[in-house]
C-alpha cells in the first residue's frame, strides 16, 4: 500500500492532534506521549467529525458497582455528537469493541532521507533530509 507523508513529526507534540487528507480521506492523527496513531475522522454511528471530540481516560468498573478505575488519561476519544468512546490506539469503541469501530491507520516516523525513494507519496509536503516525518499507510 502507498505511504503518504503528512508533515514534520516535530509539528505534532504529545497531546496534540492534526487532521490530514490521505488518499481522499480525512484522517486524524494523535501523538500519545511520543507514539502516533491515526483514525478515520468519521464516527461509525452517524458520521461525526472525530477530530472535534474531547479526549478522556478509560473508565472501567472497580470491584463493586459504584467503584471506578480510571486509567490511560488522554487515550480515549469521545465523538463530539453523541459521546461514543473510541480507543485511540485501536479505533475500537469502548462500548462494543467488536461491533463498532472506526478505521485505524498505521502511522510511522521516518527520517527525511528515506523519503526520496518509493513508495512514499510526498508531492504536497516539502521534505528535507534533516527532519523526521509522519508517514501514513493507506
Amino acid at each position, binding site marked *: 500500500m502507498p505511504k503518504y507523508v503528512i508533515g514534520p513529526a516535530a509539528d505534532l507534540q504529545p497531546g496534540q492532534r492534526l487532521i490530514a487528507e490521505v488518499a481522499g480521506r480525512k484522517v486524524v492523527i494523535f501523538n500519545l506521549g511520543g507514539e502516533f496513531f491515526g483514525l478515520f475522522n468519521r464516527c461509525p*454511528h452517524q458520521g461525526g467529525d472525530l477530530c472535534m471530540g474531547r479526549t478522556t481516560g478509560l473508565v472501567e468498573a472497580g470491584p463493586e*458497582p459504584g467503584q*471506578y478505575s480510571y486509567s490511560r488519561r488522554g487515550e480515549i476519544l469521545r465523538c463530539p455528537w*453523541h*459521546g461514543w*468512546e473510541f480507543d485511540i490506539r485501536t479505533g475500537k469503541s469502548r*462500548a462494543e469493541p467488536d461491533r*463498532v469501530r472506526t478505521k485505524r491507520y498505521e502511522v510511522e516516523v521516518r527520517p527525511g532521507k528515506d523519503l526520496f525513494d518509493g513508495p512514499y507519496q510526498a508531492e504536497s509536503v516539502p521534505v528535507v533530509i534533516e527532519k523526521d516525518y509522519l508517514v501514513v499507510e493507506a
Partner: protein
Amino acid sequence: MNASMAGGIDCDLHPAVPGIAALVPYLDAQWADAVAQRGVHDLEPTSYPLRAPLTSRPDWRIAGAKPGSSPEQLCSQALDGFGSRAGILNCLYAVTTLFSEDMAAAFARALNDWLAAEWLDKDARLRASIVVPIQSPELAAAEIERRAADRRFVQVLLPCLADQPLGRRSLWPIYEAAARHGLPVGIHAGSTYRHPVTPVGWPSYFTEDYVNQAQGFQTQLTSLVCEGVFSKFPTLKVVLIESGFTWLPAYLWRLHKYWRGLRMEIPWVDRPPPEIIREQVRFTLQPVDAPVDGDALLRILDQAGSDELLLFSTDYPHWQFDGQDALPPLLPYSLKTKILIDNPLATYPRLKEDFA
C-alpha cells in the same frame, strides 16, 4: 379447558385476604391485640379498588366476598380451568404501604404464614411469593431468611412503585438474600402512593394510573440495570409482573443507545443492557398490550430478541381477557410451550424441582 394450554405454569395468581381478621391468628400477640386496639382496618391495595372492573372478571367474582378469597375457587377456576400444573400466588395485601417498618415486618410474617397454612397446604399445585417489608431492607432480608426453607415459596415480591428506585444500594440486602436462596425477585404493578404515579405529578383518573404503570416498570428496570444490581448479582432473576411487554423493543433500543454514549458513568454495566435484560429479566404474559389476532406480537418478540422472556399468567382474578383466551391464539406451538412451561421452569429453580 383449552387442551393447547394443558400443563402450563401460571406465574401470576392473586389470593385475597378475606379481611384483617383472617391474619390475626398469624400475628404476634402484641400485633394481634394492636389490630383491635388501634382499629386497623383492611389493607386492601388502592391499586385494585374492589368494584373496579379490572379487579375481577365478572365470572370470577364471589358474592359477598373479595374476588380471589377462596382457595377452592381459585384452584378450580385458575388451575383446573386452564389445565395448569402449578400456579404462583402473588398476594397484593398492602403491607408494603405501612409506614412503620416493624409493623410492616410483623404483617408480612403473618401474611406469609397465612399463605402457607391457608393456601399452600390446601393444594399441592400452589406456590407463593414471599411478601417482604420493603420499608426496611434488613427486615425484608430477614423475612426471606425465615421463609426460604419452605421451598413452596419460589419468589420474593416487591411493589413496582414504592419509596425509591429499586436499584438503590440500600435495597441490596433484599437482592442478596433472594439470589442466595435461588429466589427470583418479582416486581408487581402497584404503588404505595408515597409518590405520584406519573413523573409529573398526580393524575386525576384510574385510567391514567394504570396506563402509567408501564412507565413505572421501565423506570425500575432502568434503575436495576444502571445501579448495577444485575452486575452485582449475576445469578439473580427479576420478573416484571403485570408490566406489559410490548414496550420492550423501543425501550431496549433507547437504553442501548444512551448506554453507548454514557457507558463511562456506569462501567459496571459492561455489556449492552439489552443482553443483560434478555438474560436476567422475565415478564408475565397478561395483560397483553397488543392486538392478539395478527402477527404484531410475534414481530414484537422478534424485535425484543428472545423467545425466553415471557411467562404464562392469567392474572387471576383480574379482568385481562375473557373465556379461555389467556394465551394469544396465533403463536407457534413451540413458542406456546416455552411460555407455558419451559420459560417458567427455567426462571424458577424451585418450580423445576417439583414440576419439571
